[in-house]
């Protein structure tokens, strides 16, 4: 996990009121400087406006490394969401290892909105050496609108050896799987026959999928 100060939720002036009084220029060169301002409200505006410039993506990603004020962080993630590119996905992936839950969860949410750009990265995330990152990759899959998402989760159920990663996959497959996944779940139960929790999770998942299927 990377070193990073935890984010701080401070109140900033109302956006609409501030917009009326805003007299600073919005060209790209100025925005690059404004995002370094000591004033959080200026940084928030710069983060928001940089979202209109594709070349602003690396600056926004770099700012994420040090920014700690929640409204500024929110503006950065909103702006990054406008650019579902490989560059953006690559940059966001490293924040899955952030110590700051708020940053990590925002990165997960933005990545969930970029199914096409994420496609080529998902297998490496599901095979990441850090089991927590593998769990976060499964969290991404849960809300990822991609036709391969159930297949990717199935591969975790079949091949993953870390009990907590498998447990997360069993929990999440209920949301996106159908009755075709039931034999795979039974194999998970066999592979982890000594783990009470996995037995419970598999039985619960099977029950919930059957309920959804025959409801």
């Amino acid at each position, binding site marked *: 996990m990377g070193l990073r100060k935890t984010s701080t939720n401070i109140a900033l002036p109302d956006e609409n009121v501030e917009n009326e009084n805003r007299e600073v220029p919005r060209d790209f060169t100025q925005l690059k400087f404004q995002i370094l301002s000591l004033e959080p409200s200026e940084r928030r505006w710069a983060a928001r406006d940089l979202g209109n410039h594709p070349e602003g993506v690396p600056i926004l990603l770099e700012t994420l490394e040090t920014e700690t004020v929640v409204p500024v962080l929110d503006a950065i993630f909103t702006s990054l969401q406008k650019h579902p590119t490989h560059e953006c996905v690559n940059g966001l992936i490293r924040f899955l290892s952030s110590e700051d*839950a708020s940053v990590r*969860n925002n990165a997960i949410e933005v990545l969930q909105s970029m199914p096409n750009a994420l496609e080529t990265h998902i297998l490496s995330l599901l095979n990441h050496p850090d089991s*927590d990152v593998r769990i976060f990759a499964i969290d991404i899959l849960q809300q990822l609108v991609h036709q391969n998402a159930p297949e990717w989760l199935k591969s975790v159920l079949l091949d993953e050896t870390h009990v907590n990663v498998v447990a997360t996959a069993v929990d999440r497959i209920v949301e996106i799987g159908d009755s075709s996944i039931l034999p795979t779940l039974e194999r998970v139960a066999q592979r982890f026959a000594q783990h009470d929790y996995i037995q419970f999770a598999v039985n619960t998942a099977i029950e919930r999928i059957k309920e959804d299927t025959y409801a």
Partner: protein
Amino acid sequence: MKKILIIDDALTVRMYHKQLMEQLGFVVEEAVNGLEALEKIQDFQPDACLVDVNMPKMDGYRFIKELRNDEALRHIPCIMISTEAEQHDKEKAYAAGANFYIVKPAKVDELQNISRLIAGAA
């Protein structure tokens, strides 16, 4: 009867722990993240909280810190439950204000021992 608040974003985990804690004689309330837990805790007034680490909106560390900053709630014991078994993860949990630290998936005897301690202290 003793009361426990189970805080975890995974439904299956909550169901599993709920079943175990009810078998141990606890009344259980659930929350899906730290933020919802802070809303529910005022009314529920639990004797203990079972807190996951990684959750959306508010994680377990932040929840416990918020709890410890509240004069009326700071006495409530917190059991942090995590996928991480490393020493520095335990230290981080204790630094945040956790009273106990257990590694997922929780074992019945571990929860049993801790619940006895909580019941004895409450």
